[in-house]
């Protein structure tokens, strides 16, 4: 792996346990049922929920927070449903993402969507063209969707993102 030798530490797991969703991470017994249930793991070469939790438990803070892997969880929660110890890898990785975002590690795809969201108040502003409007009209649906595009500006202080519109 890397050049330096990693000394296992429980401090990262404790840090995550303090974030809502991360509490149960220490209950993991590394049985692998999460990975066995994970559709993403099946089709991905790198994403393995159990291994990612193992890295957390061993304290590999920098590697995990900088990695794209926690963002590959598609939040389907099958791992959560099946884990017999009451750990939710989906929630643990959610806590990781929150922490990663605080430290400025947000994948490009997410940052791009966030930019559109902050601008319009909703995600698909760019996709709502005349064609879609017409379809709605034919169906007797309201064409003015009435999205509020100013509330989100008040939340900017809570969203650790650079202004990259």
């Amino acid at each position, binding site marked *: 792996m890397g050049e330096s030798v990693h000394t296992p530490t429980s401090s990262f797991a404790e840090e995550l346990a303090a974030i809502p969703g991360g509490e149960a991470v220490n209950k993991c017994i590394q049985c692998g049922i999460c990975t066995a249930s994970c559709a993403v793991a099946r089709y991905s070469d790198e994403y393995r929920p159990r291994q990612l939790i193992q890295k957390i438990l061993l304290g590999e803070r920098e590697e995990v927070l900088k990695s794209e892997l926690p963002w590959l969880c598609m939040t389907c929660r099958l791992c959560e*449903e099946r884990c017999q110890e009451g750990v939710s890898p989906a929630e643990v990785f959610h806590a990781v993402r929150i922490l990663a*975002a605080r430290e400025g590690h947000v994948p490009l795809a997410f940052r791009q969507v966030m930019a559109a969201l902050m601008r319009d108040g909703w995600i*698909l502003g760019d996709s709502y063209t005349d064609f*879609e409007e017409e*379809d709605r009209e034919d169906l007797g649906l309201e064409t003015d969707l009435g999205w509020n*595009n100013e509330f989100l500006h008040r*939340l900017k202080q809570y969203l650790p993102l650079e202004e990259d519109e």
Partner: protein
Amino acid sequence: MNEILLYRGCTTPVRLPAYEAATIAVLEKLGVKVRDMKDVTCCGAQYVESISQIAFAAMSGRILAMAEKEGLDILAICGACSGSLKINKHLLDHNEEARGQVNDILAEEGLKYTGKVRVRHLLQVLAEDIGFSEVERAIVKPYEGIKIAAHYGCHVTRPFEIVQVDDPENPTIIDQLAEIAGAESVDYAGKTRCCGGPMLAMDEKIATKIGQEKIKNVEVAGADVILTACEFCDLQLTQVQFDEAMSSTRRIPVMPITQFLGPALGIDEDRLGLGLNRIDPSPVLDALQGGSA
């Protein structure tokens, strides 16, 4: 329940307006008036959710507070929206600090969250607020000789402790509704698995493979149509059938549950947007007793 506020979400109005129209038509037929929510924002699912817990809670909190002002429950037709609103409602109901923080933010608009309104996913409204017997009573033109595969979606049914919709390990609401409408529901491998939709953001290839796996399992089970209760799932399960890996197979129509129930309830097909379905639903409509309208 006489009236409910519809929270559309970002995707349905643009990508699957037929789902919105069919839902409104069906609910009205079953005695529930549907009112649009205006001046709302996105629910923040997946994106804001992953970046800031307070911003996420505030976005849902605002939507909930606005519904409180109208004194009506919220109908969510998208799984992710339903999940966001319910998870945040749960947080705000149980965590005083979070509730305080969010209400401080909302106060600037004169809004306040006190926990008065409920968040209902479409399946809850159909199964619980309206009830199966009411639906049965309203069927005028049942289906005959058609097999359906129900796809529930992850955010609709999980996490059970918070969303409380159906049995996540063995869901049956869509199956029951389809059977009331005269169809036969078939079981298939991986029924409770994800459609792959949320994966589109980070890795489209994986998302497609996941969706295609589901389609294959449905095919093996011999279903004629896939019924959904979330537009994201609907779009994803449709989309993956157009990928080159599936170009040789016959495409299976995908329909939201309300679009499927509509004709059986005697609702005009124009109001259901069936012409907009990317995969032709005529094989399904032909199964209506007496043929399609």
